[in-house]
């Protein structure tokens, strides 16, 4: 009996140690997320709202996971260059113009990590390199 308790205690400690360890990528993602939130509050929240809920039919919400996933490679271009073409989010068409936000690549990556992991999304890390590649393909 004593042996059993001892073994289960040791294995429990080992398991909890294993789970509390975060991978380097998770740590980096969390750092991007936190910085991205600050940038979001500064540049995006006025129109898109604190919960990404948008504003009436003026500003689309950022809560459409399907849209965010399908257009992930376009997000950097949209933020950097603005958007004049209509977009369909949650089945509703949003016209009007989004202004451009000329941020550095690192800032774009952080904002993208925030908006694709907040508001109910869980899309993980997005790197500077990915942003750089995306920006080459801007239309």
């Amino acid at each position: 009996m004593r042996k059993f308790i001892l073994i289960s205690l040791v294995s429990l400690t080992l398991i909890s140690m294993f789970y509390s360890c975060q991978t380097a990528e998770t740590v980096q993602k969390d750092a991007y997320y936190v910085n991205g939130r600050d940038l979001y509050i500064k540049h995006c929240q006025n129109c898109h709202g604190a919960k990404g809920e948008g504003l009436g039919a003026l500003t689309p919400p950022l809560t459409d996971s399907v849209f965010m996933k399908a257009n992930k490679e376009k997000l950097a271009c949209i933020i950097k260059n603005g958007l004049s073409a209509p977009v369909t989010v949650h089945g509703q068409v949003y016209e009007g113009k989004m202004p451009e936000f000329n941020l550095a690549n690192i800032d774009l990556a952080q904002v993208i990590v925030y908006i694709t992991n907040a508001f109910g999304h869980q899309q993980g890390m997005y790197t500077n390199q990915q942003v750089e590649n995306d920006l080459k393909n801007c239309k």
Partner: protein
Amino acid sequence: MRPQSTLICAILLAVMLFASSCQQERKLPIYGLRDTKTVKNSDGTAGVDTIYQTIPAFKFLNQDSVYITNEHFKDKVYIADFFFTSCTSICPIMHRNLKMVSEKFKDNPDVMFLSHTIDFKYDTPSVLKKYAQKLGVDGPKWQFVYGPKDSVYTLAEKSYLVAVNVDSTNRDGYVHQGYLVLIDKDRRIRGAYDGTNPEQVAQLEKDIPVLLAEGKK
């Protein structure tokens, strides 16, 4: 035991009565410049009366291309602000907050909203109409008005005491303060709340009923 509890009850009652009698009805201050004038009282003696600053007569086109004047706000309390539709800085948050206030008072015909555009070049009535529809507040209760630069800017700075200006260095082209100005039935300024500050907007929500109650007496 019994006399003691009766005594405690009596003391409690007295304290409560005392406390409630001290409570004064809250009244909103009256802002703006003041002047005085001498008036003749009914008994023939001379007295002094205060003249408060009021919003002068105005006439602007609204989102339906109909002229809006002070008459539309007669015997009503209204909240005025200054914005423009292509604004990306403080206007969206101001109108997000003001929309919440308007939803709270949507069944009260005595509360109205008046948003002036300061973009005299682009924000024509049809642009305002589209904006109101997209914001989801298009109705007679919330008027969006367009007017020539001189009259809107003068009204903002001299009467509503809100600073507005053209600024070519600003990305949006205009700068303005985000105040929501509360106007009473006598066209006087009774409050100014920063429309981007949730606490002040909550205060506005509390102050509107106080102002409405004042007119009922």
